[in-house]
C-alpha cells in the first residue's frame, strides 16, 4: 500500500516544485517591487495597480489558454520534457506558472515594504558610490528581511499545498506529481486506510511548519533603529 502510494517520490517532487516556484516569484518580484518603489518610469502607478487587479483573476480561467500555448506552440508536454532526459525539466512549465500566479502578490507586498524604507538611506548609499545593484542587494534586501521571510513562507505554502495547478500543468503521474495530488487520490477512494492518510497529511503539513518556524527568527524588531535622526 505504502509502496504503491509513491509517498517518497511525491515528497521529493513537492520539493522540486515548491523550491523554484518560491524562489522565482520572490526574486523576480523583489526586482520589480524595487523598481516600483524607488525608480521613476512612465505609467508606474497604473502598471502597479493593474498588477494588483490581476491578483483577482481566477486561475481556472488561465489554465486552458496557457496549457494550449504550452502544448501547441512550445510542445511542452510532460511527456516531451521527460523524453529529453534532463532531470527537472518536466517541472519548468509549472515553475513558470506558479511564478506568474505568485508575482502580483509578491510585488504588491514587497513594494509596500520597500517604500517604507527611509529615503535618507538610499541617498547616503548613492553618495557612497553604491550602484543600483549594490543598493538592492546590500540595503534593500537585508533591511526587508521580515517582509521577504513572510513572502517566502506564503509562496512556499501556497505552492506546497497547491493541487489544481500541479494537476493541470504536470498531471498526476507518479514521476512528477507532488504530495497533494497523491493525497487527494488517497482521499477519494472508498475506504482508503485512514492512518496512511493521516500520516501523509502530517507530512504535507510539517514541511510548511518547519519553513515557518525556521524563518521566524527573521521577524526582527527595530531593523531600522539608529539609522536616521528625526
Amino acid at each position, binding site marked *: 500500500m505504502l509502496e504503491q502510494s509513491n509517498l517518497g517520490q511525491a515528497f521529493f517532487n513537492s520539493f522540486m516544485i515548491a523550491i523554484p516556484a518560491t524562489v522565482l516569484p520572490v526574486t523576480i518580484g523583489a526586482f520589480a517591487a524595487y523598481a516600483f518603489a524607488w525608480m521613476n518610469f512612465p505609467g508606474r502607478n497604473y502598471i502597479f495597480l493593474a498588477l494588483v487587479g490581476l491578483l483577482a483573476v481566477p486561475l481556472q480561467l488561465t489554465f486552458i489558454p496557457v496549457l494550449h500555448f504550452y502544448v501547441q506552440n512550445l510542445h511542452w508536454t510532460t511527456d516531451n520534457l521527460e523524453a529529453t532526459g534532463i532531470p527537472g525539466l518536466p517541472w519548468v512549465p509549472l515553475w513558470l506558472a506558479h511564478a506568474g500566479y505568485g508575482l502580483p502578490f509578491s510585488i504588491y507586498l514587497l513594494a509596500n515594504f520597500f517604500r517604507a524604507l527611509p529615503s535618507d538611506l538610499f541617498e*547616503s548609499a548613492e553618495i557612497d558610490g553604491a550602484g543600483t545593484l549594490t543598493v538592492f542587494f*546590500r540595503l534593500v534586501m537585508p533591511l526587508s528581511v521580515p517582509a521577504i521571510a513572510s513572502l517566502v513562507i506564503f509562496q512556499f505554502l501556497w505552492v506546497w499545498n497547491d493541487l489544481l495547478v500541479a494537476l493541470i500543468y504536470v498531471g498526476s503521474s507518479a514521476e512528477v506529481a507532488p504530495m497533494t495530488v497523491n493525497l487527494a487520490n488517497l482521499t477519494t477512494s472508498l475506504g482508503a486506510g485512514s492512518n496512511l492518510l493521516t500520516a501523509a497529511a502530517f507530512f504535507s503539513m510539517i514541511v510548511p511548519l518547519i519553513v515557518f518556524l525556521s524563518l521566524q527568527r527573521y521577524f526582527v524588531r527595530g531593523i531600522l533603529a*539608529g539609522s536616521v535622526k528625526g
Partner: protein
Amino acid sequence: MASVTYDHVVKRYTADVTVVKDFNVDIKDKEFMVLVGPSGCGKSTALRMLAGLEAITEGKILIGDRVVNNVAAKDRDIAMVFQSYALYPHMSVYDNMAFPLQMAHMKKSEIDKRVRNASRILGLDNFLKRKPRALSGGQRQRVALGRAIVRSPKVFLLDEPLSNLDAKLRGQTRVELQKLHRDLQTTFIYVTHDQVEAMTMGDRIAIMNAGILQQVGTPGEIYDHPANLFVAGFIGTPTMNFIPANVTNGSAKASGFEVKLPKALPAGSKGTLGFRPEAVTDRTTDGGTTLDMKVDVVERLGSDQYLYGSVGGDQLTARVDPRMAVAPGDRVRLGLDTRGLHFFDGESEQALL
C-alpha cells in the same frame, strides 16, 4: 579641479515654497567654505542639490567645469555627512565606514587601515562591532562623520557634523578636520551653527538667510565688516548691540549718548548704530566715549562677565572683566571703543560704515 559653482540656483518644493533663491557662489578648489544661517534657511537644501539628492529647480551647479545638474549622485564623487546621519542600521560601525571604500573597490588592507585610522580619530575604536542602534547620539554622529572622512573625494559636504559632540571632542575633531583638509587638499563645504567653528575653520564664510545669500567673505571680513544688519546680528555672541541713531555732523546720536563717527556719513541719515559687546568694556580711556549703564542682568561666564542693561532708552550688552564687582541695579561707567563702530541704513539695512 574641484571648484564648486552655484549659478543662479533656485529650489522650489511647491509653487509657493521657494527655499533657495537665486543662489550664486564660487567655491574655489581646495577651499574650506563654511555655510551658516538660521535654522531652516536652506543650507541643507543647498548641499543636497550639490550632492545630487535634490532636483535643481532653476540654474545650474558646476563641479570643476562640468555642469552636474543631470549627473547621478554616485558619479559626482562627493562625500557627505548627513544632518540626519543616515547610518546603515544593519551594518556594524566598521562596515558603515568601510562601505564607501568597498564601493570604490579598494583593497581590503587599505580599507582596514583607513577605517581604523578614522575610528581612532573619532574615538570609536571600542564600538567597531556595534550596530548603530546600540550607540549614543554623539557616537552615531561620529560614525556618520567617519563614513565621510575615510574617503578622498573631490568635495566634502558636512552638514552640522559636530552638533552632538561635547566641547572637548568637538575641539579635537575640528582640528582633525582641518588637518584632513590640509592633507587631502579637497574642497570642503561645512554647515555649522557653532560660531567658533565658523570663525576658526573656514577660509571663507557664506551666510544665508531665508534662502538668500547675504555675504561671502573671510571670517575677519564677516566679523569686522558685516555687509548688512542681518549678518552683523547673526555673527558674534552675545549679539551685536543695535541702537537706533541719527547722523548729525560727523557723529551719531542715540537716545542716551552720542558718538563720533570714524567716517563721514550724509547728515540726517537715520539708521542703526552697531557695536559688539566687547567694544563696551570697563576700561574707559580719556577722551574716549563713555556710557553710563544701568545694569539689569549680570551673566558670569567664568572667563567673562556680561552686563545687560540700558543706556538712555536703549538696551545694550557689555563685556567686562570677570572679576569686576557689579550687581543688578548698579550704575556703571563703561568705555566704548569706537574702532569697532558700524552704521546700517534704516531702509536697506546695508552697512554704511
